[in-house]
């Protein structure tokens, strides 16, 4: 079943000449983890803002979880989607952690008794309950981003959109945020759409869509995308370590397999290479 369906989407920003999207089509399956990659200005952020109804398309049709996106239905659509943005400081609305998690629930007019339970559950989920009364200045970037995630979890959406949500975090913070997302995707079967330049995040996805000037240039599983090696840099992604190693080995005139190898695959192949000699 498709949870997001985009048909013949056309969009351009009012102050710009060029068309951002022209006859764009995309389907996202329920429970899927989709990574959208592409160089800066390829339209990734615009696309997810269109899905959430934060921007209005010129023409075309967007259907989210069976609801057609119109000016009247926009709030229903938004209630199905949870969005985490790039800058952890600028999306922190509440004065402290629990207030921020409660913000979305207050907007949805959830009764207070239920809010108390949901806020606590969401914060325990991301491991931030003991920081419930902390102000944003006392938290690290990774912790703030976990709070942002808790604010989304508390709302119980069907789709989580990450708009470069890990790009401003240190490797440790990024890892812990990704861990929570993976659990939500695999255990609770939430649909995840992540915009990213991060190889780890893209490799966690089940499907990768490469955007270029508002067009899908590739749409495949991560392994296929990663096998393009150095040309990944052009589409805004750092090649994985195993691909970089392959390039160096080719320079040493060692014959390497063409298909993409994960870290474990690479190790196995190296073992085999040496045992043959």
């Amino acid at each position: 079943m498709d949870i997001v369906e985009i048909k013949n989407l056309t969009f351009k920003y009012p102050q710009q000449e060029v068309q951002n999207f022209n006859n764009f089509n995309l389907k996202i399956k329920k429970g899927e983890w989709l990574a959208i990659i592409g160089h800066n200005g390829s339209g990734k952020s615009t696309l997810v803002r269109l899905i959430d109804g934060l921007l209005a398309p010129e023409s075309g049709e967007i259907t989210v979880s069976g609801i057609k996106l119109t000016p009247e239905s926009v709030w229903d659509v938004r209630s199905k989607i949870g969005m985490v943005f790039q800058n952890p400081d600028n999306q922190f609305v509440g004065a402290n952690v629990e207030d921020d998690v409660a913000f979305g629930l207050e907007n949805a007019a959830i009764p207070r008794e239920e809010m108390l339970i949901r806020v606590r559950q969401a914060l325990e989920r991301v491991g931030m309950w003991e920081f419930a009364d902390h102000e944003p200045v006392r938290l690290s970037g990774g912790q703030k981003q976990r709070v942002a995630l808790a604010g989304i979890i508390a709302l119980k959406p069907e789709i989580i959109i990450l708009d470069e949500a890990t790009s401003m975090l240190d490797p440790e913070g990024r890892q812990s945020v990704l861990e929570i997302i993976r659990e939500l995707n695999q255990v609770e079967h939430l649909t995840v759409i992540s915009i990213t330049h991060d190889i780890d995040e893209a490799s966690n996805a089940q499907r990768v869509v490469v955007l270029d000037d508002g067009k899908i240039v590739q749409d495949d599983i991560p392994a296929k995308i990663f096998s393009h090696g150095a040309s990944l840099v052009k589409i805004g992604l750092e090649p994985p370590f195993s691909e970089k190693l392959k390039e160096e080995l080719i320079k040493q005139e060692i014959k390497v397999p063409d298909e993409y190898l994960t870290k474990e695959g690479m190790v196995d192949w190296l073992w085999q290479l040496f045992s043959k000699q």
Partner: protein
Amino acid sequence: MGKVLLGRYVPGDSIVHRMDPRAKLILSFFFIVIIFLANNWQSYALLFALTIGSILAAKVNFAFFIKGVRPLIWLILFTVLLQIFFSSGGTVFWRWGPFNLSYYGLINGAYVFCRFVLIIFMSTLLTLTTAPLEIADALEKLMMPLKKIKVPVYEISLMLSIALRFVPTLMDETAKIMNAQRSRGVNFGEGSIMQQIKAVVPLLVPLFVSSFNRAEDLATAMEARGYRGGEGRTKYRVHYWQTGDTVGCAVFVAVLIILLFLRHW
């Protein structure tokens, strides 16, 4: 930035800390008004007793209150000296041109000093025992009747709480931009007044621009989380009016009655 007392909240768990912020806000204003009713030593002694009693009940270190008075000490001394030298009446001790030192002058000076100290002590007590957000909440609740004359109460209180939440963030950023500009050769706080004003520009402009960006990001994030205006929202934080608050109000009203009695004694 260490001198800013506004919003300097000291967490604690005393009777005063647990009071309803609405009660604290009302009582602070009430106190400032009734100070002007005091007109003799007995009444000032009563108000001092009330203030000291409140401070003791809050179990806050007294040093904070001295710190609260310190930045205003020159203003206080200036006003007190004006009172002392320009009031006339009673026995005149000393006279020189327009200045005179009289009995009434000295008494008035002392009263003005007491008023200042009392007001500062009480308002410091309010900010020390009440988190900024609680004050914002209290203001929202107290402004509710104004909704009838179409004052956007929810919006004002949202702006207030967002402003309070961003004060430390923007202070951090100011320090960062200052250091970045210093590392590029800008001298802050040096040279003539004109030079000092010019040095502020490379600090203000980036700060302004980044505030605009922040505002846009925040508005998008709020909208994505379903914010559609103040109407029809539920509240996560609630405050309950407890017996302690009623007792506090009763004490203040009793003080007012005694004060009115002492005034005409």
